[in-house]
């Protein structure tokens, strides 16, 4: 009896120590609803390998690929191999005109399956390249993906995802915003400057390839989609997401954001505004970051930073106990408590809606293909009937046919005589001899 109790205790102890810190509960992922959605009769009937080959063939022969086919493929993925094929199909779809009718369920299914089959690195590559793949995160798939990455403490990739969310400028879901803020802050906190790559001596032969384009592009940096520096992106994410609502945590994160994004003028403006707000209190971490940056920054910008620091020095500091990280995690949990049920209900509805849309679009497509086939068959029949008519009505139309034959013969004659004239000229013609000029 004692042994069993000890065993049970040991098990529970192990499970507690192995339990990773996850934010979203399993309920959020709506796994049962999702699994029932993807095991619908429509998707079960398909053999994915044949389906991929067929889609590939249609694309190479006719140059068309349909959005609904790719959607069905994405939802019916059962093995990691299929994810490679899905990537290829998404690329082909993006380069065709059909990309305008791509369904949202395609992106959601791709994200879910990539997480399941550990294809996350490639997934993030695809998400970062919407011009070639057309994958976008919706609120729920983003939450699930961020949760996965934060559980593994992969702050770099989580900050990447947060940056993608910021680029789309849709900050409606509280859980998503709080998770993005947490990811960006943890990335900034644990950021280590990479060593500058050693530039090799360039005395190698440089081969210049010239490519002709219609118009040359002038260099243009739009400071939004063109930012490639992860740290700057994380700063911008923090700044833009925290601008939405004004509370102590958000204001502090805004300050960090503008600082890391290097928009010191905006930082100054925000600090001045916050000074006038009597309820505002500042975290130690923010002041530490400001001071750290002061040492690293160029002398011209130092003035602005020092101004900010002096302004913010007058503000009451929050005691070290609720650290910024802890406040962030509290924020996430509050958001989850507030919005989890709504999100779960919304997801369930979405799955049903997507199922219906898929059916509808599939029917539309099959109707369209049927119609094309029928038109082809009718034209074929018409041709056959015409031939038969010619045969049956031959004797009535004999005179007309004779006239037609005469016309055709005349045409043939003309072309033949032309050739003869040419050859006649050729025989009598002796080309002149060209001797090299002697200077």
């Amino acid at each position, binding site marked *: 009896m004692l042994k069993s109790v000890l065993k049970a205790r040991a098990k529970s102890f192990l499970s507690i120590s192995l339990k990773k810190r996850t934010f979203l509960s399993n309920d959020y992922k709506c796994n049962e609803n999702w699994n029932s959605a993807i095991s619908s009769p429509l998707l079960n009937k398909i053999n994915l390998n044949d389906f991929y080959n067929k889609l590939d063939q249609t694309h190479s022969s006719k140059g068309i690929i349909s959005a609904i086919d790719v959607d069905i493929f994405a939802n019916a993925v059962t093995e990691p191999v299929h994810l490679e094929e899905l990537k290829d199909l998404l690329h082909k779809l993006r380069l065709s005109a059909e990309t*305008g009718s791509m369904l949202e369920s395609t992106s959601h299914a791709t994200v879910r399956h990539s997480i399941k089959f550990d294809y996350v690195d490639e997934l993030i590559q695809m998400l970062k390249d919407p011009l070639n793949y057309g994958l976008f995160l919706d609120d729920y798939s983003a939450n699930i993906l961020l949760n996965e990455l934060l559980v593994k403490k992969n702050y770099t990739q989580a900050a990447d995802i947060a940056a993608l969310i910021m*680029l789309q400028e849709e900050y409606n879901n509280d859980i998503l915003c709080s998770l993005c803020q947490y990811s960006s802050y943890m990335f900034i906190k644990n950021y280590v400057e990479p060593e500058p790559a050693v530039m090799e001596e360039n005395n190698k032969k440089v081969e*210049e390839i*010239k490519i002709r384009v219609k118009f*040359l592009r002038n260099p243009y940096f739009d400071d*939004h989609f063109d930012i490639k520096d992860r740290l700057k992106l994380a700063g911008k994410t923090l700044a833009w997401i925290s601008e939405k609502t004004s509370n102590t945590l958000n204001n502090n994160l805004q300050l960090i954001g503008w600082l890391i994004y290097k928009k010191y003028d905006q930082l100054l403006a925000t600090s001045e505004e916050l000074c006038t707000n009597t309820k505002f209190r500042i975290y130690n971490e923010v002041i530490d970051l400001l001071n750290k940056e002061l040492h690293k920054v160029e002398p011209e910008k130092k003035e602005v930073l020092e101004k900010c620091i002096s302004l913010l020095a007058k503000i009451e500091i929050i005691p070290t106990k609720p650290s910024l990280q802890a406040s962030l995690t509290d924020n996430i949990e509050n958001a989850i408590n507030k919005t989890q049920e709504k999100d779960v209900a919304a997801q369930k509805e979405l799955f049903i809606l997507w199922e219906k849309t898929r059916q509808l679009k599939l029917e539309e497509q099959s109707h369209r293909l049927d119609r094309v086939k029928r038109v082809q068959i009718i034209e074929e029949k018409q041709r056959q009937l015409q031939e038969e008519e010619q045969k049956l009505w031959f004797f009535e139309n004999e005179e007309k046919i004779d006239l037609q034959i005469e016309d055709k013969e005349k045409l043939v004659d003309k072309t033949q005589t032309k050739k003869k004239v040419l050859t006649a000229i050729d025989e009598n013609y002796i080309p002149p001899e060209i001797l090299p000029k002697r200077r």
Partner: protein
Amino acid sequence: MATGTVIKYVGRTTDFKGKSLGEIVGSLKNFGVGRIIVRSVFLRYPEPSFMKIVKVQTCPDEERRRVRVGVEKTFRGQKLPNITEIYRTSYKTDYQLIPKREETRLLESINTIGNKADVILPNSIEMPPLMKLFIIKDHEKKGLETSKDFMMPLSYNQSPNRTNKIAKANEQPTIKFTMGLGKPVSPSLYDGIPL
């Protein structure tokens, strides 16, 4: 020892500043419906000009990929009533996306332009000198009296962006167009010629 390759592009130069519509619209969820874009060349005017995307239809890939976009266009502060379609010019790398946080500011900037004095364009203009002489001679030959003043109706190229009013029957235009040469830079060259 690898040889480095440098790619040099050869082609016509432009003074466009920005990205092509396809790139902007392809990087946004739902193809950017509801977002505001701006064309860099229209920024040269003092009044704000921008376009709000209403409908997007994608087109197949080609060297400079185009996209069919329906926009509500506001040109130089005037909002055009109909939806303009951008297709043939969507390849131009001249478009810029306006972030959502600056949208309200842009939309309100129209209200602060201030009413500039309404310009009324004339609906008739003096005849050219040669035409006048011709008519006088013609009337003499035919024996008609030349009692008219020599004015002829003026027609303008209509376009949705041109919003200046044309004077109707009794209105006084605010600008007058003349057939004269105006004030020449060196009057000595025009001695004795009525301008």
